[in-house]
């Protein structure tokens, strides 16, 4: 039972990472794509939105990794070996992105210097979520196999498959949509910027539909376990709810009800990742590594569960406080 609790915390941390860190990546993409007469102001609005919580969002990813190696050490060892190459690329992306953003903020204000950092920041913001999606997708392909001696399929299995690519593109566009939707709320005091981000949120949101359909179709061949998971009894309800929320976000954007749009987008992303995890359950890596097969001993999992509950009780209120102080400003 404890392994399920720890796994549920991991999924929750992953969702929070997507909602907060993902939006940072999306913001970086829009930074790179900033066009037109208001490009500089768009960049400034994005930087302001990322500013207060900045790289702190990576703690969610660190949490996922730490829970993985504490709770499921065998799964961790195999994932880190099989996906060594994409994970290394992702780390390079994270390092470049985080530092480019910081350095742009504190470096000289003149245009060429700022642009150089911007290109690096934006480029890394494209690369990183793409690879994150590919990595996550690779786990479901069933191409990463492990025997009693460990990994048997080498370092290229899974993550280069069409299914993994489709997941990468999906993650990228999902984050871009999320960021644009957040930004419509963050720019309430600047109506012209708000219109810019509304347009971006609308078309990226509309694009999500066909991309999701492609992921689903590719999964029949590329990730049969996932496809089967998505055809279980609960799946139609979950898919229906996700689609409703997606449409709701678009309608709300259309009608300029930005707060509603933000809520719908948050719900949409949470349901996608939650449903994804449910479809893959009980596998950590399809088909050989289940939660049960890679779990740590009971003593560890029990302690971990206690620590997680205590941590949640202590830290979530402080985090709420941080958000309240900075994001709460606008509602005054």
């Amino acid at each position, binding site marked *: 039972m404890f392994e399920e609790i720890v796994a549920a915390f991991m999924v929750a941390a992953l969702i929070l990472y997507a909602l907060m860190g993902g939006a940072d990546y999306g913001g970086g993409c829009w930074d790179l794509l900033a066009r037109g007469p208001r490009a500089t102001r768009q960049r400034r609005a994005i930087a302001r939105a990322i*500013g*207060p*919580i*900045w*790289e*702190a969002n*990576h*703690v969610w*990813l*660190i*949490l996922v*990794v*730490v*829970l993985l*190696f*504490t*709770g499921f*050490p*065998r799964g*961790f*060892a*195999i*994932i*880190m*070996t099989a996906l*060594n190459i994409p*994970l*290394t690329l992702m*780390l*390079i992306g*994270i*390092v*470049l992105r*985080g*530092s480019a*953003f*910081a*350095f742009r903020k*504190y*470096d000289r204000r003149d245009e060429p210097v700022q642009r150089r950092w911007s290109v690096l920041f934006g480029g890394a913001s494209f690369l990183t979520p793409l690879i994150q999606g590919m990595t996550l997708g690779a786990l479901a392909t069933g191409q990463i196999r492990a025997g009693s001696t*460990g*990994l048997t399929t080498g*370092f290229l299995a899974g993550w280069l498959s069409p299914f993994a690519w489709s997941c990468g593109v999906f993650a990228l566009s999902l984050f871009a949509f999320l960021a644009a939707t957040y930004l419509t709320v963050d720019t309430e005091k600047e109506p012209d910027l708000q219109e810019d981000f509304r347009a971006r949120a609308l078309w990226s949101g509309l694009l999500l539909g066909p991309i999701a359909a492609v992921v689903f179709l590719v999964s029949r061949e590329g990730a049969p376990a996932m496809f089967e998971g998505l055809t279980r009894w609960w799946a139609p309800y979950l898919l229906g709810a996700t689609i409703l929320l997606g449409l709701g976000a678009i309608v709300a954007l259309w009608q300029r009800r930005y707060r509603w749009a933000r809520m719908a987008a948050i719900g949409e992303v949470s349901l996608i990742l939650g449903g994804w995890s449910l479809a893959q359950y009980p596998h950590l890596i399809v088909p050989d590594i289940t939660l049960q097969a890679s779990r*740590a*001993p009971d*003593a*560890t999992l029990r*302690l*971990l569960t206690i*620590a*997680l509950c205590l*941590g949640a009780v*202590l*830290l979530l209120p*402080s*985090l709420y*406080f*941080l958000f309240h*102080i*900075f994001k709460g400003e606008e509602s005054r």
Partner: protein
Amino acid sequence: RWARGAAILFAVGAVSGTVLSFELGLLWPGFMEHAGAIIGMPFSLEGFAFFAEAIFLGLYLYGWDRLSPILHWICGLLVALNGMLSGIFVVTANAWMNAPTGFRMVDGKAVDVDPIAAMLNPASLHETLHMTLAAYVATGFAVAAVHAFFLLRKRTSTFHRGALAIALAVGCISIPLQILSGDFSARKVAQLQPAKLAAMEAHYQTGKGAPLLIGGLPNDKTQSTRFALRIPKGLSLLIAHDPSARIPGLEEFPRADWPNVRLVHWSFDLMVGSGFILFAIALTSGWLWWRRRRLPDATWFLRSLVLAGPLGFIAIEAGWMVTELGRQPWIIYGVMRTSEAVTPMPGIALPFFVFTVIYILLALAVIYLLRRQFLKAPESVDKATAASTHV
């Protein structure tokens, strides 16, 4: 302005922390597969401490004029506290690698895992104590060096005088404590990992009344150390507090279990040497301060502070070299060889070089930005003092 500097360092820290947690698996999957369940706990706790640090640093940095002064100060305190806690947790995990407890190995698998016992292993106390004090020593003297540098240019700046006084006090109080904790650590190492101690001291032949060797050129083939400064009976006196005590030398251990003696010995001397130079500076400052009843600001004194600035960090790095290289060829002392833990990934040299280059670039950029942060806008000094008196 240190707050802004801290923001730069924190961002780089958050990023490289992410890298680190992944690299544990990318480089050492064999180690993590066995050790994850046993020492994952301190990493998880460290995660929480780091998390709290991130949250309160956010509040601290962006809350100057949005929080009440007391609340703001409490946030600062929590940042410091959580920073210290995360350091302690991580070092606990390293201590476990040196003194593994809290499990039994049966047929190559760990059973009866007890994560709490693993955290409270026999090496935890001295390692965490030594590292926590080291952090205060290094930061104290490094910050003192920066402010001494600015005082050399403009002797009257109240901001730099106040900051120097605080930093110097932190450094001068922690360095004598650090030397005591170093003595404690060495005696624990002698007890837990005699081969590591022998390598640290380049001590080859077992014997009573062993001399203390400083510097020199250890030679594994002849099992002797040439050109070293010898203090007769010094080692026995330090380790056992008895000039005729018997200290086992490297010859007691199979050759395959020796660490790289030269690197360990030299790193050890570098660490101890840096520590004692800082101790001398602390004594001098204490003496001057007491005699003149005010912050010492003679040019030669400030210059020596600037020169000594990096020593604390050099000592930290050298100390980690001692503990890590000294543990080789084991990754988990007495349980698992480092070579058994490494990833089967071929061409691992490539990512190694890529990451080295990235870290060098990051380090250069950080130095450049911190430099700009401090050389820029000297007029903001008054603003900074005004802000600090606000709090």
